[in-house]
Structures are given as structure tokens and as C-alpha cells.
């Protein structure tokens, strides 16, 4: 009996591309998204090169900045994936960034120093925990209204969008709070808020080991249960691809050196002269590493835990999920709590990066976050979406945004037009794609 049930699937004759996709199990949509991303990158670079005489997009400096700018949107987009998969929406995330950023500003600049003294090493820790907790509480509150009072999420979070922005203003009567705690500031990135060249290679080595382990372990697991295995060349290809991406990204962030002013400041701090040919790499910025950790954590949550299963099941068929004994209301509260906490984390990064808390922090972020998730293949009809897709979606949007600035259309209006059009186009392409695979 085991023999019949493990009969290999029938091999249909298909072209080299289809065979390649089948063997590597790569999502064609992922390839499409990455392709679009590269086209945007090359497009901006080439435009800069030929029209402005200065192609500045594909430079270590710009790509490094791009990675930092993507962090806060990307972090929230991973949470928005869960919200949208379960057929909800969260319009309040930008305002949650604002309100958590504002109260974190007050806490670390005006309240905690009174008790702990200015520059106390615990200030940033308490502030970050506080920011995450406030975000989570707001999310839990909104989630409860949605789950237990059956108010549509669109309305609850539309209300939240206005309410929390108002609270952010009232928190400090519209003042800007600056500068933030010196250690807290590092979370936002910048020359000192990065792990440097050596640290980056260590991170790369760990990531590479992780990729290899996943491939080897996956193969062993399939063998154990007698499932069809991927051909060896596909495994090798996937490993090479993973290592290539990790190595390439590390080379790029390490190719971006500290600017002269920072070098001077650094060596003055050490009481030394700036050596000739001094080259200190930025390496991965802290917010990018935070995004990486969040992405890995959320991917594990969505693909390896019961919680993630239930998110997909609720999105696919809420009634079936409830009949299977899943507490769909509690799940809704948990999902919005998680979204709120991630918005709080984005608030940490955004205010740290700005080195100040203003009540406009995170303004319009909700739209970028939702757009990232949707561009990244999360279906508004529910049930479908991936974490990596949302992060690539965030990269696409932030690339469009910075690219427009770089080629001199940064005054806002053109940027909005391009991003708005890109969103509609992305969703249309997604609809076409889904029709074709049906």
C-alpha cells in the first residue's frame, strides 16, 4: 500500500522554463517581482546616467540608504500580510507609528532622565519595550472592537487613523521632541548605527549556514517520508542562489564607506589622526537587521506554526475555520495586537532615524504598508500572501520613491503619481497572473 501511495507524480513534457520552475519550486510570481525590482533599479540608474550624466541609483551609498528606508515600512508590511489574509485591513498603522513615537520621545527625553539621569543605559531599553507595548495595546483594543463587537476593521482602523494622530498631537501639544537618547538613536541606522564590515560578514556567514541547513534538512525530511526529491542540480542551484544573494548584499553594504566627517569624528574620539586611505565600512544597519529578524520570525510564524495555519484557514474560509474549532475572534485580536506591536517597532525605528519625535511621524505610512503587502502578492480577497513578498513589495515602493527623488522628481507630486499608478498596475498584473494559473 505504501508503494502505491508514494508513486511519483506523472511527469508531463514541458519546456525548459517550466521544468526549471518545477525542479526548483521557485514561485514564478517571486521571480516576476524581483525582475520588476531590478528593472526599476536599472531604469533609474540608466536614466540618471544618460539624462543627468550621473547614474546614482546603483551605488553602494544609495542601496544602503534604500535598505534603511525600507526597514520600517517592511516591518509593518509583514504584519499587514496577516491582517489582509484574514480579510481585514488596518488603516491606523501610520498613526500608531506617530503616537508610539511621540510617547517614546516624551518618555526618553522628558520623563525617564528625571528618574534615571540623562544618558542612563537603561533608557533606550525601557523606551523600546514601552513603544512595543503601547503599539500592542492599541492593536489589541482595535482587534477586540473588530472581533467581539463585529465592527468592520475598515471602520475601526479608519477611526484609529484619526484618533491616534490626534492623540499624538495632544501628547506634547504639537511640539517636536529632539534629540532622542543617544543609544536609542543608533536603532535608526546611520554610520554608527550599523555593524561594520566584519560584523556584516559574520551575519552573512550565519545566514549562509542557515540556507545550507534548510536545504539539507529539507531534503533529509523528504527522504525520510519517501516524497519525491528535487533533482540535485536544483538543490545546488538554490544553495548557490541563496549564498549569492547574501554575499552580494554584504559586498554592497560593505562597499559604502563612512564619509569624511564621520571618519574625522571617529578618530578624534580615539585621539588619533585620520589615517590616509582610511576606509571604514558601514555594513548592515541595525534597522535592516531588525527587519531581517522580524522577517524570519514572521515567516516561521506563518509557515511553521498552528497560528500561521489558522491565519490562512480563516482567510480561505472563516466558517470552516470556526467549525474546525479555531477561535476566530481570539485570532483576530492576536493578529491586530501583533500588527500594533510591529507598528510600535516601526515607530522606534522611524523616530530613532529622525532623531526626534514629531506628531507627523508615520504620516501616510498605512498606504505604503498596505501597498507593499498588495504589490507583494497578498490578495485582498483573503487567504493568500507571503512575508517575503511583502518585503519585496516594500522594496519596490521605497525604490520608486527614492528613485524619483534621485532623478529630480522628488517634489512629491510626481512621486505620488508614479507610486499610485504602480500600485494599480501591480494589482492588475496579479489578477492576470491568477487568471492564467487557474
Amino acid at each position: 500500500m505504501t508503494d502505491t501511495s508514494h508513486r511519483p507524480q506523472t511527469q508531463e513534457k514541458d519546456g525548459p522554463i517550466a521544468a526549471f520552475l518545477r525542479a526548483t519550486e521557485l514561485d514564478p510570481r517571486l521571480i516576476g517581482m524581483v525582475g520588476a525590482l531590478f528593472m526599476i533599479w536599472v531604469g533609474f540608474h540608466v536614466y540618471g546616467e544618460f539624462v543627468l550624466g550621473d547614474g546614482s541609483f546603483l551605488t553602494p551609498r544609495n542601496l544602503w540608504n534604500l535598505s534603511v528606508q525600507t526597514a520600517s515600512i517592511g516591518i509593518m508590511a509583514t504584519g499587514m500580510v496577516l491582517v489582509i489574509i484574514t480579510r481585514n485591513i488596518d488603516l491606523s498603522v501610520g498613526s500608531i507609528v506617530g503616537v508610539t513615537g511621540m510617547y517614546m520621545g516624551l518618555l526618553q527625553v522628558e520623563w525617564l532622565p528625571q528618574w534615571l539621569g540623562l544618558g542612563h543605559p537603561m533608557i533606550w531599553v525601557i523606551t523600546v519595550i514601552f513603544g512595543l507595548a503601547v503599539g500592542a495595546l492599541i492593536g489589541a483594543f482595535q482587534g477586540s472592537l473588530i472581533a467581539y463587537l463585529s465592527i468592520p476593521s475598515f471602520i475601526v482602523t479608519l477611526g484609529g487613523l484619526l484618533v491616534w494622530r490626534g492623540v499624538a498631537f495632544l501628547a506634547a501639544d504639537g511640539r517636536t521632541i529632539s534629540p532622542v537618547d543617544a543609544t536609542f538613536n543608533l536603532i535608526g541606522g546611520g554610520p554608527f548605527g550599523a555593524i561594520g564590515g566584519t560584523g556584516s560578514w559574520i551575519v552573512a556567514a550565519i545566514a549562509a549556514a542557515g540556507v545550507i541547513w534548510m536545504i539539507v534538512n529539507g531534503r533529509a525530511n523528504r527522504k525520510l517520508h519517501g516524497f519525491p526529491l528535487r533533482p540535485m542540480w536544483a538543490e545546488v542551484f538554490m544553495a548557490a542562489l541563496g549564498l549569492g544573494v547574501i554575499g552580494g548584499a554584504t559586498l554592497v553594504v560593505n562597499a559604502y564607506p563612512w564619509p569624511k566627517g564621520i571618519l574625522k569624528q571617529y578618530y578624534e574620539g580615539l585621539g588619533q589622526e585620520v589615517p590616509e586611505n582610511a576606509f571604514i565600512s558601514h555594513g548592515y544597519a541595525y534597522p535592516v537587521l531588525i527587519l531581517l529578524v522580524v522577517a524570519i520570525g514572521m515567516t516561521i510564524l506563518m509557515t511553521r506554526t498552528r497560528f500561521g495555519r489558522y491565519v490562512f484557514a480563516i482567510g480561505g474560509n472563516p466558517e470552516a475555520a470556526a467549525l474546525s474549532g479555531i477561535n476566530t475572534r481570539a485570532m483576530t485580536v492576536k493578529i491586530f495586537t501583533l500588527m500594533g506591536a510591529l507598528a510600535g517597532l516601526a515607530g522606534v525605528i522611524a523616530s530613532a532615524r529622525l532623531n526626534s519625535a514629531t506628531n507627523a511621524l508615520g504620516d501616510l505610512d498605512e498606504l505604503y504598508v498596505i501597498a507593499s503587502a498588495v504589490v507583494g502578492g497578498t490578495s485582498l480577497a483573503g487567504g493568500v500572501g507571503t512575508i517575503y513578498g511583502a518585503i519585496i513589495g516594500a522594496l519596490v515602493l521605497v525604490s520608486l520613491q527614492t528613485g524619483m527623488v534621485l532623478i529630480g522628481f522628488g517634489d512629491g507630486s510626481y512621486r505620488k503619481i508614479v507610486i499610485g499608478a504602480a500600485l494599480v498596475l501591480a494589482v492588475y498584473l496579479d489578477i492576470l497572473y491568477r487568471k492564467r494559473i487557474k
Partner: protein
Amino acid sequence: MSTSNRGTPLVELRDISIAFGGIKAVDHVSIDLYPGEVVGLLGHNGAGKSTLIKCLSGAYQADSGEILINGEKVEIKNPRDARAQNIETIYQTLALADNLDAASNLFLGRELVNSMGFVDETKMEAETRKIMGRLNPNFRKFNVPVSALSGGQRQSVAIARAVYFNAKILIMDEPTAALGPHETQMVAELIQELKAQGLGIFLIEHDIHSVMKLCDRAAVMKNGQLVGTVKVDEVTDEDILGMIILGKKPAKAA
């Protein structure tokens, strides 16, 4: 009652009532089920069959009345409670999450986890392959969402889900409604097999022929009330039809 000499019933629904906005969907209905027995539930659409049975499966909670399993009173407040009593339900809608594959649906709400608490996908697929090999040996589509499956294949996933977890009480809401003749025959054989294993089965069915063939007893409902319960080998098709349409119990089986 003619069945009173068979010991404790597996399930006893006593005096169940449930109303939705003033409309009595189920009105003081009592019904029982013995091990190794198939009881058919018949009636027009809206007669209250599905509603009654949903009180047992945990989808609804009765306003009044009690549920006894093996003679003991139990509280069934949600589907989880029902599953804890080894009650499994195959819903008419199948209750499948269309975006998930067969294994994910089979184990929905009861995923297998490894020692680290993570969902063990390969083990679930292996188990699914095993049970599908028994129920529907032609089933091959293990790695696609169930939305890509045919009606019969979807049905077999729903049935596999009920059978896999060693149900003692099985509720089937029109299990053959969407099936072709071959698959209907397969379900009929399965019901016989499960019955032989000592399961009690509630079968909601519109087709009187199936009821006559598969069931030991038939309970007929009309307008939320129980018309009567009869042994199928003591009545004719027409008797049951009369109960459904006229709401009258045949004289000889009373």
C-alpha cells in the same frame, strides 16, 4: 420505543429547542443513536435537520434540552467540545479552506506538531497519503489547494478528516449530494464499513432510496418538529414520503 432494549444509547438528544429571532427552528425534538447504527434524518429544506445536528456538532448551542453521550450529560459549547467527545461532522458545505492543501485541511485545528511545537508538514502529508490511499486510491493531488480538486475529491478530503480521528459518532450532512454514481457507491460502502466498526452515524439525506438502503432508522422532521422515528425495514418508501410531506406518522409503525 422499539429500541429501548438495546442498552444505553451512544447519543441522546433530549427535548432540544433552538430559535432564531422568534422562529423555532427546532422545537422540542428528541432523538437517539446506538453504536453500529445509522439513523437517517429527513425532511424538507428548512425542516430543522441541519440545525438540530449542528447543536450536536457544536456549531450552534441549543436554547433548551440536553445532550447525553453514553448516558452522561455533556455540554457542547463549540466544535472543539464536540471533537473532544469524538463527534466528527461532514458538513454539506464540506467546510474546507479552499486555499489550503488536502493535508492542511485534514488536520485543520488539530495539526501534528514536532517536539519543538512546529507544525510537522511532512508527517501530516504522509498521514494524509495513507488515509487517502485507503479511502480514494486514485487521489494524487496532495500539493495543490483543494480549490483545484473535483467535487468528489473534495468530498473525500472532508470524509478523510472525519474518519482519521477515530470518530465514535459521525454526522454526515448530505454526503453524496455533489457526487457521481461511482463516488456515491464508495460513500455507501464506507458507511457500511464504519457501521461495522461500531460507529453511530447520523445521516442527513434527501434521497429516500439512500435512506432505505443505508439507514437502520429514519427520523423525519417538519417545521422544526419531529414527526416520528421509524425502523426502515418496517415501512415503505411511501410511508416515509407521507411523513415528510404530510407530517403524519404511518399507523403500523407508531
